[in-house]
């Protein structure tokens, strides 16, 4: 469903992705691991189309369409979802309003009818339950005064609401204790339905104990340097990323 070919991208004057290739089929979960600064988060931003992340060369196709040619919101409407590492606050806009606008914008783009208030509310309540957020979170401002863990769970709540085709989780485990991590993982796993694909970006193997990937890719210096199954994550856990530096003369 997604095919990334020889992708080069930069932020300001620094080229960060230097020839990245990745092929994702429907229903697959791909974990992207790597040292800080390797380009893990950049990949998520480039795929979602964030301003300031400039593609120098290469291509990204999603279900046969040129993803790079689309606006940010068009990509979202086409089914790309990014769970943010640091979700931002929108004071005064309730989670409920935000999600309602969002769900309906995406439905509209897909030629579906807007949800009625009752339908929407039911969906929102279910999503909250799945990530163990109290219902009053729907009334609170988006991320306004949320703890780190609450923000992360709120991202997964949105994932559940928006039913994307490809969900990119950008370090959704960072800053979480084990209990919160399990909640996040449970929420994500509930969305694995054999069709929806995932890119799970993480620094640590820990998250992958709870979200079992089909493939693990190690990214270093802007490209994938090693790919394998879940066992690769264990290797990294045991030996860290130092071997990359030895293997490639790259700073880990």
């Amino acid at each position, binding site marked *: 469903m997604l095919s990334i070919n020889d992708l080069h991208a930069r932020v300001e004057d620094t080229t960060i992705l230097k020839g990245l290739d990745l092929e994702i089929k429907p229903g697959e979960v791909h974990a992207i691991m790597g040292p800080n600064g390797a380009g893990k988060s950049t990949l998520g931003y480039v795929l*979602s189309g*964030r*301003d*300031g992340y400039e593609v120098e060369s290469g291509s990204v196709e999603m279900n046969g369409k040129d993803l790079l040619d689309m*606006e*940010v*919101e068009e990509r*979202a*409407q086409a089914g*790309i*979802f*990014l769970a*943010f590492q640091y*979700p*931002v*606050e*929108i*004071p*005064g*806009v309730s989670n409920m*309003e*935000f999600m309602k*606008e*969002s769900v309906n*914008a*995406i439905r509209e*783009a897909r030629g579906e009818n807007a949800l009625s208030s009752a339908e929407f509310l039911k969906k929102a309540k279910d999503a909250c339950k799945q990530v163990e957020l109290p219902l009053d979170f729907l009334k609170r*401002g*988006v991320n306004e005064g949320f703890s780190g863990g609450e923000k992360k769970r709120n991202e997964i709540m*949105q994932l559940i609401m*928006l039913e994307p085709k490809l969900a990119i989780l950008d370090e959704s485990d960072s800053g979480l204790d084990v209990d919160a991590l399990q909640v996040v993982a449970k929420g994500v796993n509930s969305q694995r339905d054999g069709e929806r694909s995932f890119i799970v970006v993480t620094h640590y193997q820990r998250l992958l104990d709870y979200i079992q990937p089909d493939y693990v890719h190690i990214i270093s210096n802007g490209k994938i340097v090693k790919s394998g199954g879940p066992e690769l994550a264990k290797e990294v856990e045991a030996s860290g990323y130092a071997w990359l530096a030895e293997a490639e003369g790259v700073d880990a």
Partner: protein
Amino acid sequence: MSEQIDQALARKYDAGFVSEIESETFPIGLDEDVIARLSAIKGEPEWMLEWRLKAYRTWLKMDEPDWAHVDYPKVDYQSISYYSAPKSMSDKPQSLEEVDPELLRTYEKLGIPLHEQEMLAGVAVDAVFDSVSVVTTFREKLEEAGVIFCPISEALHKYPELVKKYLGTVVPRGDNFFAALNSAVFTDGSFVYIPKGVRCPMELSTYFRINEQNTGQFERTLIVAEEGSHVSYLEGCTAPQRDENQLHAAVVELVALDDAEIKYSTVQNWYPGDEDGKGGIYNFVTKRGLCEKNAKISWTQVETGSAVTWKYPSCILKGDNSVGEFYSVALTRGRQQADTGTKMIHLGKNTKSTIISKGISAGRSDNAYRGLVRMGPGAEGARNFTECDSLLIGDQCGAHTFPYIESSNPTAIVEHEATTSKVSDDQLFLCRQRGLDPEKAVSMIVNGFCKEVFRELPMEFAVEAGKLLEISLEGSVG
């Protein structure tokens, strides 16, 4: 992202059409003869003409204020016409059926049907077109409750004693340059009188429309709430899109006697001028309310229009335990300039005031909050809380805050909080990543920022205000 914001700020003004209506308009220029003619057309009592002339003579000696954070070419007061009225109105139509249909269509186009059966239930409307009131709805129903709601020109005939008793008591003739000018030449506006102990059974509202070219609109509104009465009033304003600047210099006076409550809301959407600052309304307005014992006056304003705004709805908290409130959203874009805020003058004991001001600046506009909180020597135990928040959209606009605090009573407490924030790229990206287009995203962020103020508007108008912001921001990101 800022490029997109700029595009998004390209404006669209829905109320910018001109109505083809034959008008009787005075030649431009102002002198005592013009005032006498104006007073004669309205058939005013002698004392009213005297009052106007005194105001005019005071005005001649005054200078236009220049302390506000706004910059505009000086107005030539001799190049304005001081009276313009649809010809059809000179026959004094007695009912809606006799009113020129073109006039009714104008209000319909603005979303204000004047046929009672089509109107928002529970809202009475006075429609003022250039210098005259076209129609006032639901009058009979209001009369049953003893409420007077009519054009001020009519009140001068029917209730001269009431008008004489209160006119100029809150905003004196010589209060300031624009108030003096208004006192000399005011044409129409609304008069509201709520008798003792009466809770006005409906929302009252006035819609001001400027149509004619080269005219000024000088309306005067007077609201008197007798002891223990209660009224909620809303005004809305629009004008056609023209290349010349037009002057709107209004005076609003509110009198809240013991235990009375007046809620005054404004949705101001005068034509703001084009992208380069050409045309637009100069909105120079004096609004002030007087609170007697235990009375409460609450000002809520949503200001999205006008090229230049100079406006400080204020409360004189004279009576003990009286309460003043000011809730404001001021949005400027393009080349708009706004200098707006409030004055809370605490004279009585245990008086309380709350100021919540939300300024939103976009494009190359300038938005200033200017507020005065004065605690007089007798303001034992008085309290004020001020919150003043600015939101910047893009990087070419300005937000300014000028709070003045004067306290002559050591027991009075004044609190002031202020914040400035930006619609950040992160917020926009989050919204767009969730499928919202940039315009929708900005309007949602701005609406969230204004929530505290919108909550204060009467329900029907809160929706309208939200929509207005949406239209105003249309094209502000793209």
